[in-house]
């Protein structure tokens, strides 16, 4: 469709070209992980992964599979760079981010390789904007070593009910405590704030609970400041899976449907708070 103004010659130089008819399919999901300025982009033939980290204790990843893109060409096995996410989002929304039906910004993202800027061609209503954003050396994202074999407890909930709990969380509490257990209270979110403590209990047979697999009782605390950003991802999602492993590390995986109904994933990893959690 649009953006065919590029000459064939240019296309040869790019190691990565990804196009979307609706840039919101990328910008919306990136908003869910924008709590820090910088993000690590990692593109493989499978798709795009964008990582944002906080103090090495928390990591958020957004996955946009190659199928989501109208065009996705990658010339290497892996292409990575670091970029200012805030600037990228500003560019993606350069036409004002209107949500009028039928009006969308088309995007063509191109990258020539190490040292080159990320070039964005954005078009809306016949107007084309070209943005070039400098890239940096990608840092190695922390490997949380979270693997399914180590998972002790897992639940999958419909986001609706969790959204309510997260929006009401007592922010004067420094930690969010998560208790998962095969017996009462099954799945509990707790806060300890200035005025007292609060508990949100989800029973295992709730119709909001799509999957409940808890093998042992675990209570872990996580810094509220680290988890609060995940509320954005929760807001976009329709389902969330909560898993903890034997070390108490937390994995939150959000299933997000974009404007066209396609599925993308956002994932948060968080280390437990160092203080010993009381049981």
């Amino acid at each position, binding site marked *: 469709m649009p953006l065919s103004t590029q000459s064939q010659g240019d296309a040869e130089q790019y190691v990565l070209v990804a196009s979307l008819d609706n840039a919101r399919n990328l910008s919306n999901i990136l908003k869910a992980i924008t709590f820090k300025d910088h993000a690590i982009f990692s593109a493989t033939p499978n798709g795009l992964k964008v990582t944002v980290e906080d103090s090495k204790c928390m990591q958020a990843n957004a996955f946009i599979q190659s199928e989501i893109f109208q065009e996705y060409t990658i010339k290497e096995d892996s292409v990575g760079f670091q970029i200012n996410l805030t600037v990228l989002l500003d560019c993606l929304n350069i036409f004002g981010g209107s949500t009028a039906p039928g009006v969308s910004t088309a995007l063509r993202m191109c990258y020539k390789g190490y040292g080159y800027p990320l070039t964005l061609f954005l078009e809306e209503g016949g107007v084309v904007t070209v943005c070039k954003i400098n890239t940096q050396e990608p840092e190695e994202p922390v490997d949380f070593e979270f693997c399914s074999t180590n998972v002790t407890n897992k639940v999958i909930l419909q986001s609706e*009910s969790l959204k*309510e*709990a997260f*929006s*009401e969380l*007592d922010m004067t509490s420094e930690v969010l405590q998560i208790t998962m257990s095969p017996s009462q209270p099954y799945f509990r979110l707790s806060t300890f704030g*200035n*005025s*007292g*403590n*609060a*508990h*949100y*209990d*989800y*029973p295992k*047979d*709730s*119709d*909001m609970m799509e999957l409940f697999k808890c093998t042992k009782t675990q209570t872990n605390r996580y810094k509220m400041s680290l988890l609060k950003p995940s509320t954005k991802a929760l807001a976009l999602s329709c389902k969330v899976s909560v898993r903890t492993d034997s070390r108490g590390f937390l994995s939150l995986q959000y299933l997000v449907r974009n404007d066209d109904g396609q599925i993308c994933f956002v994932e948060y990893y968080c280390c437990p708070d160092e203080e010993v959690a009381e049981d």
Partner: protein
Amino acid sequence: MDCVVTGGNVKVLAKAIHSLSRIGDELYVEPQEDGLALRSVNSSRSAYACFLFAPLFFSRYTIPIGLAFRCKMAIKSVQAVFRSIATLEKTVEKCHIELDEQNNLLTFTLHCKHGLVKTHNLSFQDSESLQAVFDKDSYSNVFRSHPRLLVDAVVHFPPSLEEVTVSVSDDRMWVKNHVEDETDRSKAMLTELCLASDEFEHFSVQVQNSVTFCLKELRGLLVFAESTGLPISMYFDEPGSPVVLSVTDSVLEGNFVLATLSDDSNLRKNNTKRACTPPPPPDDFMNDDMDSYLIAMDTSVMPGPSASRPPSPPLTNSTSLKQTAAANHRTRPPSEEEEEEEEEEAVDSSGPPNKKFCSLFFGSVLPPSSQMTTQPLTGQEVLASDSEDDVQ
């Protein structure tokens, strides 16, 4: 204490709490035999509100036997339990309020749809009983209207407006903003609107006069009344005695008591009248002879009468509260008020009477009832007793 609120009443309870939060920072909770009383008072003691929920409001109402229990807690904490009214309406099936005496916690448990259970354990402090002494049934002027009438009237005044003056004649009520004398009238915007008696469901004027009170604190009640559709009754007497606004239905009663500016007249009529001076600059002890924005408060530790019954003679028990125009620099809870601090306020040109008057503030426990009979039942004299009545 063990109470359960179900269905739509949870929303009503939440709205009452939100409207009390417009008055003061603390919520006083007192389960009584005639119902659960939730009260709040502002820091300058010029506004007080009380909601009494009858036992029938609850699907279960059990109160502690023996010693009366009463407590207070930060109202923000309780508001957090009922944060989103819209969500409450959609998802909460019942609310269980329980007292955990051992741990000094009041537990609010919300049972919601889909099996979700939200439990809030809130800490509280023991407190004295907080009851304003007023007898609205004895007031000369009584009005009742659908809340819409008052809401529509109030909308014409800016949200920042502090005071309004309500004047009544036999068949009309005027509402206008109160402008300080010293303000240049040509620069102030004056708004006045007039309501005819037939706009009210009930309009009875025995004494044609005007009262001036703070509008801001009233808005909480207006929001509550409008959302529940309950008619608002308004009672007032003469300037200086409080204006009371209430909403009632078969299972609840809400009273908002606001102090009014007293008249200019004699200073020493029962020590209740003061020269109507402009509100003093903040933190200026010397100017504390201000206007008498006063509400008698019964902060005794004895089980007090509920606010809706005729007051026990307030005088020695009662504490008259003064308003400093700026937020009162003293924001201690009443039980901690020291008498000597009151005396500071009394330093003014009116001399001794004020000092004595002030020393009645937050008087601690009270003399026996025999003393009361010597006092006229001054239900509407919500101010201090005669200076002769020196209670220490």
